[in-house]
């Protein structure tokens, strides 16, 4: 569907993207994930046509679109701020692209009504100014405006980042639902790993203008290819010298283990590696409890499901265990 081949983007002397290669499949929900300044938005803007690469090609369905103007790429965009035109009503916002294409009034009306129904916007809301809508409704308008011109793909640049936590979770689910219903190929940019893991079919993890790993959420989380990916996605324990020696791991490498893969007071059958430690402190999250355990000369973070019975107190001596299969080494 969309293919980036050896894309290099430069701003003056600064090389922002180094040899980016990505292949997004038809109908896929593909996420660019990474910290601020890693190049994910630059990659997206290269696809949408706002940035021309110094070298490399962008292909859509096999056709080279590297030098095709923005408006001729047939790509819909949902911006971080939604970029809804504040001086137009919701209806005019959605109809803007159709008017530019000089469609007949009847066609515009039909298409706007159609898409509004699909994204659950009422006639009354269509007559309102965008400032009169809630954050969630504004997002639906932005999606409707991007979809009404029937683009081949839709690109979303951190569309949930301006919302509060609760609304973000709610809209995340709606977004996924809509994407499934429309069946449209979607490229999504975010720095929020939870958002990426819950929404995506596949994720590309960016770091300093490079792609560190492309894979399904399970692959990037459980089988992180690089130390950066392991650290960036989810919380993780880095095993220090004492633990490395105790577990007889290769001292030349860095070793990591996820918090939920370390357990408290388990048997040797469940966890081949066992060691004694002391609970330093704990954080109560309701669904689970996070313990900080002093063990083998370092503090190990552990997450245990909150069953309401096995709750350990600070100062309590416990045994922590893990399986060698759960250790990621780089």
């Amino acid at each position: 569907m969309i293919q980036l081949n050896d894309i290099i983007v430069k701003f003056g002397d600064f090389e922002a993207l180094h040899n980016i290669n990505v292949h997004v499949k038809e109908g896929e929900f593909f996420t660019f994930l990474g910290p601020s300044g890693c190049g994910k938005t630059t990659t997206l803007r290269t696809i949408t046509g706002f940035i021309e690469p110094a070298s490399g090609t962008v292909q859509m369905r096999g056709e080279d679109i590297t030098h095709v103007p923005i408006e001729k790429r047939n790509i819909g965009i949902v911006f971080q701020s939604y970029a809804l035109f504040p001086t137009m009503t919701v209806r005019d916002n959605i109809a803007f692209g159709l008017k530019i294409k000089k469609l007949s009034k009847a066609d515009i009306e039909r298409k706007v009504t159609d898409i509004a129904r699909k994204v659950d916007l009422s006639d009354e809301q269509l007559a309102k100014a965008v400032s009169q809508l809630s954050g969630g409704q504004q997002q639906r308008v932005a999606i409707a405006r991007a979809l009404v011109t029937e683009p081949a793909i839709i690109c979303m640049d951190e569309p949930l980042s301006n919302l509060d936590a609760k609304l973000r979770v709610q809209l995340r689910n709606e977004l996924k639902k809509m994407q499934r219903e429309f069946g449209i190929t979607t490229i999504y940019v975010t720095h929020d790993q939870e958002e990426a893991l819950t929404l995506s079919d596949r994720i590309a993890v960016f770091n300093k203008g490079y792609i560190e790993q492309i894979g399904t959420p399970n692959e990037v989380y459980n089988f992180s290819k690089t130390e950066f990916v392991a650290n960036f996605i989810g919380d993780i324990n880095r095993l220090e010298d004492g633990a490395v020696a105790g577990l007889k791991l290769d001292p030349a490498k860095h070793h990591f283990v996820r918090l939920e893969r370390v357990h408290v007071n388990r048997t040797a059958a469940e966890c081949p590696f066992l060691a004694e430690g002391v609970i330093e402190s704990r954080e109560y999250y309701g669904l689970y409890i996070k313990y900080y355990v002093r063990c083998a000369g370092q503090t190990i973070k552990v997450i245990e499901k909150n069953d309401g019975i096995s709750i350990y107190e600070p100062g309590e001596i416990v045994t922590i265990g893990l399986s060698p299969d759960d250790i990621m080494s780089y």
Partner: protein
Amino acid sequence: MQSTLKRKNGPDWSMIYKVFGGALFVYLFLGFMVMPCLNTLTSIFTTKDAAGNTDPLAVIRFFFAGSMPSFVINSLKLAVCLVITVNVVGISIVLLTEYFDIKGAKILRLGYMTTLIYSGVALVTGYQFLYDKDGMLTTWLFQMFPMMNKQWFAGFSAVLFTMTFACTSNHALFLRNAIRGIDYNTVEAARNLGAKPFKVLFKVVMPTLLPTLFSLTVMTFITGLCAMSAPTLLGYNSINPEIVRLAGSSVADEAFPQARAALLSIILALFTIALLTVLNHYERKGHYLSVSKTKAKLVKQKIQNPVFNVLAHVYAYVLFLIYMTPVVMIVVFSFQNWPAIRAKSLNLGDWTLVNYFGTQDYSYTTSRGKQRLREGVISGVFSNSDTIGGIRLSFILSAIAAALACVIVVVAVNYIFKHRNKKRAVLVESCLLFPWLLPTILICYSFRTFFNNNVWYVLGQNMYYRENVRFLIIMAYTVVKLPFALRMVKAAFYAIDDELEDAARNLGAGPLVTFLRVKLPIVLPSVLAVFALNFNALFTEYDMSATFHSSYGKSYAMVIQSMTSEEGRDGYNMNGSGRRCASTVFIMLVSGLILYLVYGVGARDLGERLERRKKRRERWAKLTGRKSAGAARS
């Protein structure tokens, strides 16, 4: 982030626009800013002596040998005194209405803000009407204090008094905003730590107002230095009236008047540049910003000491009377008949609209004892051909200049934002800010002298000749208003999210469509506000009109000034004072309407407008007993 992709089909119109626009901009900047001012500067050093030889230092020698320094000293004296009096009154009115708990603060605030709609030449002539030697208020005061000098309202004291109350508008706007921005938690914290109310005021509140106060002080100083209408009308020898006098003088009357006027205007420019540089430097150093994450709204402070509380109330209401009395009196007198106005005493049994509409005959007895009648010489503002002519001319010139300034600035700011952080954008911005550095009088004087010759780049015409002067006035108005328009419109452009432009382009809109349909509607309220404020200021402006004084360019302000001339028994300038009062009321209404449109209607976004429209429809439906469209749908 700027796009690097260009459209590749069709003729490159954007390049054609750029070249044409660039050439026009260079023509306007060089032709109507640089050349006239440069001419003024060089005229100082190209004076010829009696033998016809150029003597570059003649004017400077003349300056130090003659009385010219006294004009500079007088202007400086006025500026320094004004800084003190305006700050005292300005800070007082803001503290009394915003910080201290004074009864009737809302009414007081309205009174103190009357200068927003009652200013300039209208205010000066209004004060003159009430306070001059046989003015109504002077007569009252004289009855109360028989020892007082009836001619107190002339010269320096009159100018200082008038300008003190005329120049507090900026305090009423900006200092008020600054004091409203104070985090009340800081006041509470100081009180909690044991500070007494006045200690809190001087140690916590005032320091946060200092940056605003500093800016206001500099602006007041410049206003004092460049004062024009008050010194001219009330008789005070400061720089600007002298420049205008010299500009109209000839070498037959006195030694090189034009070069002396040029020297005085350059001195004024140097002072202005120095002060603005200091202000800029100070503003760049930054302000005291509130570090509070949850700012608390300021709660008015009750003055605990009963004596101070009473004194504060008395002071507040005395100030209120000073602000309101001229306004009320002018409004009342505008409905009085000619004999009452002539005698400057109210005749509450006889009211008339003749100062606004219609005419009356004037009968008088000649020195030979014959009774004469002059038909229709007592006329109102809208029935007097001179006044109507002045209003019409000012309306047209101001509207064209205000619109021209907006168009130039909107196009330029769009360019500046497109090329942000590039040298060419900085250059364009600097060119537009250039007039800010120069006093208005220098620009106008330069225009008058430079274009009072056949200038090749304006089709070889003398622009100060006959009707051409109107074009010159439009250009001067436009040039003078560019910096203000630039600052306001630029602020509006900052509000445009970059992503809006990207979104429009993504949806297929070209640069022109994006500008016209996306960006312009967003900045339009601000642009219209700039247009309205500029129009308001120009409609009754005096300084420039006085410099360009010509029978073909007699603006409304000049007409108002002419109304102050003594009314003759034979019918000359009959009812000038009545029309002056009515003119002031008319100006107040126009200014009030414009401020309402700008800050009331213009500040509403689309959502508010739709909401109001909906309510109006519902009210209409209720009145007519029909269902509104919205109600019917739901």
